[in-house]
């Protein structure tokens, strides 16, 4: 018995860590399990009966797959926009000294330190007063706005850690500035840019608060669909999409790491 206690005491941190991990993963397991449920009534909160109906007919609910495709479109465009703009800002911050640097850094930091609802309400008020029709464009503008800072942070960290001598060496070897940028700088900065883009996609795809304040009646993104459904009745297909997204994300991450490891092993 005392041995058991000793073991527990020695591994207390790890045990607490495992419990924390369980807390994090538990809802995903519930979402997965309840994607096989055949609920009684409109809500999918209590287990009734095993069924694969939702999996064989994922788009069987009106409007759900449309909202999913809208979310994917917005996330893709917002990612492209935020990544391009953010990478440019990150290079300027990492590589140049210029007047207004402190103000720029503050402007990049503030959106990340601001509760979403404040940004959502203020941007919504602006659109409203400018009489700009709420819809696809307003959502896209808002998403690029809040993703930008995250891209800047990710890319800037990467560019700052790059050895500037590599680029100087390229120029010593008579590479033009364009060649240096395309062949040396960009490939070196790529992991930071990729991280920023991935983060943007995830943030935009999953965003609810800012979207709710800046969308029109016809532009219902997937999170907005889930929100509406949580009040009217939730189709099981929502859990199918949630599970599929989880599996796809894990598969992509694992594949990415595997490719990275292989590349490392080869070089």
């Amino acid at each position, binding site marked *: 018995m005392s041995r058991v206690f000793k073991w527990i005491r020695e591994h207390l941190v790890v045990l607490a860590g495992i419990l924390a991990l369980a807390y994090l993963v538990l809802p995903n397991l519930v979402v997965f399990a309840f994607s096989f449920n055949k609920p009684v009534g409109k809500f999918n909160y209590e287990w009734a009966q095993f069924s694969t109906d939702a999996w064989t007919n994922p788009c069987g609910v009106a409007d759900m797959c449309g909202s999913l495709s809208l979310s994917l479109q917005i996330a893709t465009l917002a990612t492209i926009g935020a990544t391009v703009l953010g990478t440019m800002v990150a290079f300027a911050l990492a*590589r140049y000294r210029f007047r207004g640097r402190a103000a720029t850094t503050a402007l990049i930091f503030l959106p990340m330190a601001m509760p979403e609802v404040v940004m959502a309400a203020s941007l919504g008020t602006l659109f409203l007063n400018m009489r700009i029709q709420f819809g696809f464009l307003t959502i896209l503008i*808002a998403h690029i706005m809040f993703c930008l800072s995250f891209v800047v942070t990710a890319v800037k960290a990467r560019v700052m850690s790059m050895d500037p001598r590599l680029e100087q060496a390229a120029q010593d070897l008579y590479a033009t500035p364009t060649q240096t940028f395309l062949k040396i700088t960009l490939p070196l900065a790529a992991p930071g840019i990729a991280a920023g883009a991935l983060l943007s996609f995830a943030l935009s795809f999953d965003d609810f608060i800012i979207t709710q304040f800046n969308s029109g009646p016809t532009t219902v993104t997937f999170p907005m669909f889930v929100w509406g459904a949580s009040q009217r009745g939730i189709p099981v297909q929502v859990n199918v999409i949630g599970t599929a997204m989880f599996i796809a994300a894990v598969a992509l991450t694992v594949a990415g790491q595997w490719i990275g490891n292989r590349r490392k092993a080869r070089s």
Partner: protein
Amino acid sequence: MTTTTEAAPPQVIPLDATKPRRKLTAYWLLLPGIAWLVVFFAVPLVYQGSTSLQTGSLEQGFKLTWHVATYWDALDEYKWHFVRSFSYAAIATALCLAIGYPLAYTIAFKASRRWRNVILILVIAPFFTSFLIRTLAWKTILSDSGPVVGALNTLHLLSITDAVGLTSGHRVLATPLAVVCGLTYNFLPFMILPLYTSLERIDPRLHEAAGDLYARPFTTFRKVTFPISLPGVVAGTLLTFIPASGDYINAQLLGSPSEQMVGNGIQKQFLNVLDYPTAAALSFILMALILGMVTVYMRKAGTEELV
């Protein structure tokens, strides 16, 4: 003291030092991104300040009348929303730190390289299931006939939490406990990741050195590990507290009307009541209070580098 023995840092020649013309490049690079942030982030904030002092209606239009009373009315109507927002967010942040630290520590020091990646993926992966769906899953977990309520009842813990006011009527859903539980869950990764980044940088030999100097494991943690990880603690608490205090989703989905937070108020005023001045005043107060708290906290914690 012995700087001469250290390897010289790579010689950085600032690009703009050699060619003054290049300074212009910096501004061209900044222009689109900064313009975007100014137009769609900074200007709206200023504009919101003006909206909060306007009066009128949607049909007749709003006019700037410097109507400061909106602030007092908003504060009076929503004072308990503010109290709830900040206390729920504070409890959730403390819980995130208590739950997240052991996990970050395990990833950084106890897990093998292979496991480290697996656990990190598991920490980040939930992000990719819409957080609304995951929050709704808590409705199942905490439901009245569910395992959590059953276990708490058997342990007679619900009577205690009922007495304290965390729960009521021997149920967890639609109580402050459910909202805090949801907030903690939703923002836990934002605590774990910065904690892990700051812990991972610690040289394990420092632990050995502390052990060699007869420090017990807990003393090593208190005097060596924790102080070094402080920047991660500061970043993690900010990244949890700020979004948690502005959140309205957990209160809406897991709570009842008596758990509503400021976010719910702003959302209601903006989307249902269409009283934009009140919504603007509420979010202005929320922003001011958070910026004030963050400034004081960062002064106290003494870390400046966050970006």
